[in-house]
C-alpha cells in the first residue's frame, strides 16, 4: 500500500508539490517569527557580554524598606544599596585579585564631528577606564592612548566610526550635570560588542571624581589572577575569598560576572516583555494563517483524488488501506514542507537587519533558528498536515465507491458543527459589542457595577470573537458577497467575469478558506493602523486642548542638566518658566513617580477646565498637599483628604551630618599631618573623607513624611503624583531630582517664532534638548507611534505575503483541476489574454473578499478596543481611510500579480492533451 501511496504521489507530482508548498508557506512564517525573537534575545545577551566583562562584581544588597539611596533613580536594575568606594582598595589587596575598581557607567550624549548627537539604539554609556585597563580587559588600543588628563576621552571604535571622530579631534559630551569640551585621546576596540552599543571612556580617577558622591558607588568590578585557566570553579573560589573580607556592615555582596550579565539581560528582557507577547501573538497568527493554507490545499487535493480512491476501493482495497495511503502522503508532505518552510522562513527573516539598517542601526547578527525551534516547526507542520488529511482520508476510506465516484464533482456542504460554533461566536461577540456600546446603561442604570472590571476583556473578546465567527461562517456568505462584487466584472467582461465567478462559487469553501488567510492579515493591519491613528489624535487633542503653554522644552534622554533652566531664564521675552522634576520615592514601600512643580504651574500651563478632578489642584499646591492621578488612586485605594506617607531623605540631618563630617575631616587631616610630619595628598584626604562619612553618615538618613491628598485628577500629561517644589526639595537630594521638562510661556505681544529660535539657540549646546511648540510635540509623538507601527507592519506584511502566496497555490491547484475545462475553452476560441483575465479576476475576487472582510473586522476590532480604553485616554477614534485605501490597493495589485504564475501554466497547456486529460 505504501508503494501505492508513493506511486500515487508520483503520478500527481504537481498536486503533491503544491501541498508541500502550502506547508512550507505556513511553517516559514512561524520560523520567521521565531528567528525574530532569537534576534532580539541574542542582541540583548551580547549587549552585556563584552561591555561588562569583569570576572566578578561587588554590589550592594537589595534595599530594605527604610533605607533609601540615590541609586533608585537609575531605573531598571538597581533597587540596591550603595557601597563604599573604599571596598575596592580592600579587595585589591587580596593576592588573587588583579584589579578592583568602582564601575562607573553613565548615560551621556556624545557629539559627532558635524555637531550632531551620535545616534544609538539606547543611550551612549560613559565608563571609567583604569590606567592598566588594556592588560586585563581583553580590549585593544586601535590608535592614540588611554585618556589621562582632564577632559580627555577615549572612544570605542564603533562610536568613533559613527561620530566620524578620530584621535586628536575635539568634541563635546553632555552628562546630567553639564556640557564638557573634550579631546579624543585614543580609540579602543572591544572584543565583542552588541549591535548598536556605543561606549565612551574617561580616565577612571577623573570619572570617580566627577560621578562619585559621598564615597558611594553601586558596583565594583573585580578581575582575578588565575594560576591556570579561568574556570567557573576558580571564579567561585575568588568570590568566596572576597566575601570573607567584606565587612558585615558593608551591605555588599559578590556575584560572578556571568551571573551579573545574565541578570542584566534578563532584566532588559523582562522590561521588553511586551515584545515577547507580540511575538507570541504573531506566532499564533502565523499558525492560523498556515493552518488555513495547509488544510485548504489538502482538502482540495484529497477531494480531487476521491474518484481514484473509490476505484481502489472498488478493486478491493480496504478502507483502512485507503486511509493509511492518504495519511502516509500527508506525513511525507508534512516533513518536506516543514523542511522547505524552515529554509524559506530563515531566508525571509534576513530582511529584518536590512530594515533596521534604515533606522540607522547596523546589525551584523546572523539570525538562525535553533534546534528546538526547528523541531517545533516540524511538529506543527506535520501535525497540521495530518489533521488536515484525517477528515478527507476518513471520507476517502468510508465512502462507498460508487457514491465517491459520483460525488467527486459536487462541492461538499458546510459542516453543521462549523455553522453552530460560528453562530455561537457571532451571537456572543455581537452581544458583547452591544454591551460595550451601551456600557453606561448596563453599569449604572442596571447596577451591574462589577462589569467595569471586565470591560477590556469584553472588548478583546468581542473583537476576536467576531473574527472567529467570520472565519467559520465565511463559506456561508461568500456566495452573496461574490455575487455582488462580481456583477460589475461580469458586466465589463462577460466571459472571463462569468467564468471567474462560477469558478469561485464552485469551490466556494476553498475560496473562502483561501481568502480567510488574507483576511486575518488585513484585519490586523487595519486594526493596528486605526488604533495608531486614534492614539495620535487622542494624544494630540490632549496636547491642543489641555496645555496652555507656548513651548515645552525636553530632552531625547528624558533628563536635562539643571543649567538649562538658567539659560532659558536669561531670555526676557518669557512670562513664565516652570521646570518639572521627577523622582522615584517610596509610598507604602512601592517606588512611585513623584513630579515636583512650582505653585504657579497649573495657572500658567494647563487648562484645568479640560480635566476631570476632585478637590482644587491650585489650592493643593499652595497648601503643600498632593495631587494624585486617578489611576493611582484607584489602584491604591487613595481617597481625597487621606494622609499618605512618603519616604524621603532627611535633609536637615544630612546638612548637620555634613558639617560634623567636615569638622572631623579637618581634625583628622591635622592629626595625620602631625603624625606623618607632612601634608596629606589628595588621595589620603579622600580616604579620610570616606572614613569620616562612613562613621557619621553610613546611610542617607530617612524621614517619613505625611502628606494630605488635596486633589485627585486625571491629567494625562503628568505621569505621577504632583507635589510642590518646596516640599519635594526638602525630602530629596539634588542628584535625585531629575529635570525632565520645562514649560514656558511668552510675554504678551512676543513673536513665538522668534522666541522659539532664540530658545533653540540657547539650548543648542546640549544637543539633545528641543524646544517644542504644540505642533512639534504632536509630530514627535507621531514619529514614535510610526516607528512602532512600522515594525508591526513589517511582520504583518509577511503574513499578507504568505496569504497571497496561498492564493497562488490555490489558483495553480485549481488550474490543474480544471485542465480539461481550460482545454475546451481554448479550443472554442478563448484567447490567452482572456484566460489570464479569467484567472486574474478569480484571484482578485478571492483577495477582495478577504480584504473587504478584513477591513470590516479590523475596524470592528479597533472600535471595540477604543471603546474599552476610552476612559484610559484613547478618547478619539480616527479611521484613516487613506491608509486603508492604500492597503486595499496594495492587496489588490498583488492579488492580480498572484494570478500570473497559474495563468502561465494555463496558457502553456496544450489543447489536445488538456481535453484528453483525466
Amino acid at each position, binding site marked *: 500500500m505504501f508503494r501505492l501511496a508513493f506511486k500515487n504521489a508520483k503520478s500527481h507530482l504537481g498536486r503533491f508539490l503544491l501541498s508541500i508548498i502550502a506547508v512550507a508557506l505556513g511553517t516559514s512564517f512561524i520560523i520567521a517569527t521565531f528567528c525574530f525573537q532569537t534576534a532580539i534575545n541574542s542582541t540583548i545577551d551580547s549587549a552585556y557580554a563584552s561591555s561588562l566583562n569583569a570576572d566578578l562584581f561587588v554590589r550592594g544588597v537589595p534595599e530594605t524598606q527604610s533605607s533609601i539611596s540615590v541609586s533608585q533613580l537609575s531605573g531598571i536594575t538597581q533597587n540596591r544599596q550603595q557601597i563604599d568606594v573604599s571596598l575596592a582598595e580592600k579587595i585589591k589587596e587580596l593576592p588573587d585579585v588583579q584589579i578592583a575598581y568602582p564601575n562607573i557607567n553613565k548615560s551621556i550624549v556624545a557629539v559627532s564631528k558635524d555637531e550632531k548627537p551620535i545616534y544609538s539604539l539606547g543611550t551612549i554609556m560613559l565608563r571609567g577606564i583604569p590606567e592598566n585597563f588594556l592588560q586585563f580587559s581583553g580590549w585593544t588600543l586601535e590608535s592614540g592612548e588611554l585618556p589621562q588628563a582632564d577632559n580627555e576621552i577615549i572612544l570605542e571604535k564603533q562610536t568613533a566610526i559613527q561620530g566620524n571622530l578620530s584621535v586628536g579631534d575635539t568634541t563635546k559630551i553632555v552628562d546630567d550635570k553639564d556640557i564638557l569640551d573634550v579631546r579624543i585621546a585614543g580609540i579602543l576596540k572591544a572584543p565583542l560588542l552588541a549591535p548598536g552599543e556605543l561606549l565612551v571612556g574617561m580616565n577612571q580617577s577623573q570619572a570617580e571624581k566627577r560621578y562619585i558622591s559621598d564615597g558611594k558607588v553601586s558596583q565594583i568590578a573585580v578581575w582575578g589572577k588565575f594560576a591556570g585557566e579561568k574556570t567557573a570553579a576558580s571564579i567561585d573560589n575568588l568570590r568566596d575569598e572576597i566575601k570573607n573580607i567584606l565587612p558585615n556592615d558593608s551591605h555588599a555582596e559578590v556575584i560572578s560576572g556571568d551571573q551579573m550579565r545574565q541578570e542584566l539581560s534578563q532584566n532588559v528582557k523582562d522590561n521588553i516583555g511586551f515584545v515577547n507577547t507580540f511575538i507570541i501573538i504573531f506566532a499564533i497568527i502565523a499558525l492560523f494563517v498556515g493552518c488555513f493554507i495547509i488544510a485548504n490545499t489538502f482538502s482540495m487535493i484529497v477531494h480531487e483524488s476521491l474518484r481514484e480512491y473509490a476505484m481502489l476501493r472498488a478493486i478491493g482495497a480496504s478502507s483502512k488501506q485507503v486511509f493509511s495511503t492518504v495519511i502516509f502522503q500527508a506525513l511525507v508532505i508534512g516533513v518536506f514542507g516543514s523542511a522547505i518552510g524552515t529554509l524559506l522562513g530563515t531566508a525571509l527573516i534576513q530582511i529584518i537587519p536590512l530594515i533596521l539598517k534604515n533606522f540607522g542601526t547596523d546589525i551584523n547578527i546572523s539570525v538562525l533558528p535553533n534546534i528546538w525551534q526547528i523541531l517545533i516547526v516540524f511538529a506543527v507542520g506535520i501535525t497540521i498536515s495530518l489533521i488536515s488529511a484525517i477528515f478527507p482520508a476518513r471520507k476517502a476510506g468510508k465512502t462507498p465507491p460508487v457514491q465517491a465516484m459520483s460525488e467527486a*464533482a459536487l462541492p461538499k456542504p458546510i459542516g453543521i458543527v462549523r455553522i453552530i460554533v460560528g453562530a455561537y461566536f457571532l451571537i456572543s461577540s455581537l452581544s458583547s459589542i452591544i454591551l460595550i456600546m451601551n456600557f453606561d446603561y448596563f453599569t449604572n442604570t442596571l447596577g451591574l457595577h462589577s462589569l467595569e472590571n471586565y470591560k477590556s476583556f469584553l472588548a478583546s473578546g468581542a473583537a476576536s470573537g467576531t473574527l472567529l465567527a467570520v472565519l467559520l461562517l465565511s463559506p456561508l456568505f461568500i456566495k452573496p458577497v461574490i455575487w455582488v462584487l462580481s456583477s460589475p466584472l461580469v458586466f465589463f467582461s462577460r*466571459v472571463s467575469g*462569468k467564468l471567474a465567478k*462560477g469558478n469561485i462559487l*464552485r469551490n466556494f469553501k476553498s475560496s473562502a478558506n483561501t481568502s480567510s488567510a488574507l483576511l486575518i492579515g488585513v484585519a490586523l493591519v487595519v486594526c493596528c493602523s486605526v488604533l495608531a491613528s486614534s492614539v495620535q489624535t487622542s494624544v494630540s487633542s490632549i496636547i491642543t486642548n489641555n496645555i496652555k503653554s507656548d513651548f515645552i522644552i525636553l530632552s531625547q534622554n528624558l533628563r536635562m542638566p539643571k543649567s538649562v533652566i538658567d539659560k532659558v531664564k536669561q531670555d526676557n521675552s518669557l512670562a513664565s518658566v516652570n521646570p518639572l522634576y521627577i523622582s522615584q520615592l517610596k509610598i507604602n514601600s512601592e517606588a512611585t513617580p513623584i513630579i515636583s512643580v512650582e505653585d504657579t504651574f497649573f495657572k500658567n500651563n494647563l487648562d484645568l477646565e479640560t480635566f476631570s478632578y476632585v478637590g482644587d489642584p491650585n489650592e493643593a499646591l499652595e497648601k503643600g498637599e498632593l495631587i494624585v492621578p486617578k489611576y493611582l488612586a484607584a489602584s491604591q485605594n487613595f481617597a481625597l483628604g487621606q494622609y499618605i506617607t512618603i519616604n524621603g531623605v532627611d535633609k536637615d540631618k544630612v546638612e548637620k551630618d555634613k558639617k560634623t563630617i567636615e569638622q572631623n575631616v579637618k581634625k583628622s587631616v591635622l592629626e595625620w599631618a602631625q603624625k606623618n610630619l607632612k601634608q596629606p595628598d589628595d588621595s589620603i584626604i579622600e580616604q579620610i573623607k570616606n572614613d569620616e562619612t562612613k562613621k557619621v553618615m553610613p546611610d542617607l538618613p530617612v524621614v517619613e513624611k505625611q502628606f494630605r491628598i488635596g486633589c485627585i485628577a486625571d491629567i494625562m500629561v503628568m505621569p505621577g503624583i504632583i507635589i510642590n517644589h518646596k516640599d519635594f526639595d526638602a525630602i530629596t537630594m539634588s542628584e535625585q531630582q531629575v529635570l525632565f521638562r520645562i514649560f514656558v510661556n511668552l510675554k504678551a505681544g512676543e513673536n513665538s517664532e522668534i522666541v522659539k529660535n532664540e530658545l533653540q539657540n540657547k539650548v543648542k549646546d546640549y544637543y539633545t534638548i528641543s524646544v517644542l511648540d504644540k505642533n512639534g510635540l504632536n509630530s514627535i509623538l507621531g514619529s514614535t507611534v510610526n516607528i512602532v507601527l512600522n515594525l508591526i507592519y513589517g511582520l504583518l506584511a509577511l503574513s499578507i505575503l504568505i496569504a497571497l502566496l496561498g492564493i497562488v497555490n490555490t489558483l495553480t491547484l485549481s488550474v490543474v483541476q480544471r485542465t480539461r475545462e481550460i482545454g*475546451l*475553452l481554448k479550443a*472554442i*476560441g478563448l*484567447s490567452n489574454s482572456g484566460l489570464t483575465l479569467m484567472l486574474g479576476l478569480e484571484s482578485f475576487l478571492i483577495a477582495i473578499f478577504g480584504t473587504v472582510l478584513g477591513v470590516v473586522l479590523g475596524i470592528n476590532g479597533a472600535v471595540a478596543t477604543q471603546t474599552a480604553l476610552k476612559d484610559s485616554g484613547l478618547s478619539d477614534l480616527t479611521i484613516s481611510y487613506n491608509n486603508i485605501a492604500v492597503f486595499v490597493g496594495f492587496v489588490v495589485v498583488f492579488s492580480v500579480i498572484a494570478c500570473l504564475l497559474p495563468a502561465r501554466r494555463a496558457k502553456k497547456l496544450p489543447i489536445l492533451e488538456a481535453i484528453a486529460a483525466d
Partner: protein
Amino acid sequence: MVSQLKAYKVFKKYGKAETEVVALDYVDVEISQGQFTAIMGPSGSGKSTLMHTLAGLDSINSGEIFLNNIKISNLSQKKLTKIRRDNIGFIFQQFNLVPTLNARENITLPLDIAHKKVDFEWFDKIVNIFGIKDRLKHRPSELSGGQQQRVACARALVTRPAIIFADEPTGNLDSKSSGEVLNFLKQSVDEFGQTLVLVTHNPRAASYADRVLVLADGKIIHDLAKPSYDQVLQVFKE
C-alpha cells in the same frame, strides 16, 4: 460544389528515429461546403490526427491546409485562436461543457468570447432543433449525457461557423441518444447548409454522412459518396 477546406500533401509524424510513427502520409483532401463528411478508420489509422490538423489544433510537418482560401497551416497560435473562434465549431466526445455555466450560457459562450451579439432567431431555431429549449437554465451536471451532447452541438452551430468538427460525439452515448444527436446534426446540414466533419469508428454513425473517407495507416483508402450502412460495413470489414 465550393470547397470549404483544402489540404495538400499533409504529412505528420510523431516521435523520433526508432519510435517514429507516421500519422498522416501525404494526405490530400477537400471538404465541400454544406456537406456532411465522415472520417472513419480503425484506432491508429490517423483519423483523429487528420481532424486535429484540419482544425488547426495540431501542427503538421509538411503540406498546406486552406480554410476558406486562408492558409492556416503556418499561422501563429494567436491567429489560429481567432480563426477557430470565428470559423470553426467543435464537438468533443466528452467534457464539452463548462460546468459552472448553464446550458444557455454554454451555448452562447463562443459568441461572448468573440464579443458578438446573439442572433436570437437563430438561437431559438437551433435549440428547437436540438430539443433543449426547456433545459436552458440547467447546469451540465443536471443534464443527461445525450442532452449534454445536444447542448454541445448547439454551441458549435451558434456562431454559424464555416465548418464544424465533431470528434466521436456519440462515443459515450447509448444507441437511442446517439441516433437523436446524429439526426439533429444531419438536419442542420440539410436545412442550414452547415459543413460538418464527423470523426468516428462507428459504421452506424458514418452512415448518416453524405461522404465517407476511410483512413488506414495514414492514407485515405476509400472515398465513398452517400454510402448505405451496409456499404460502410462492407468497407470496414476489409
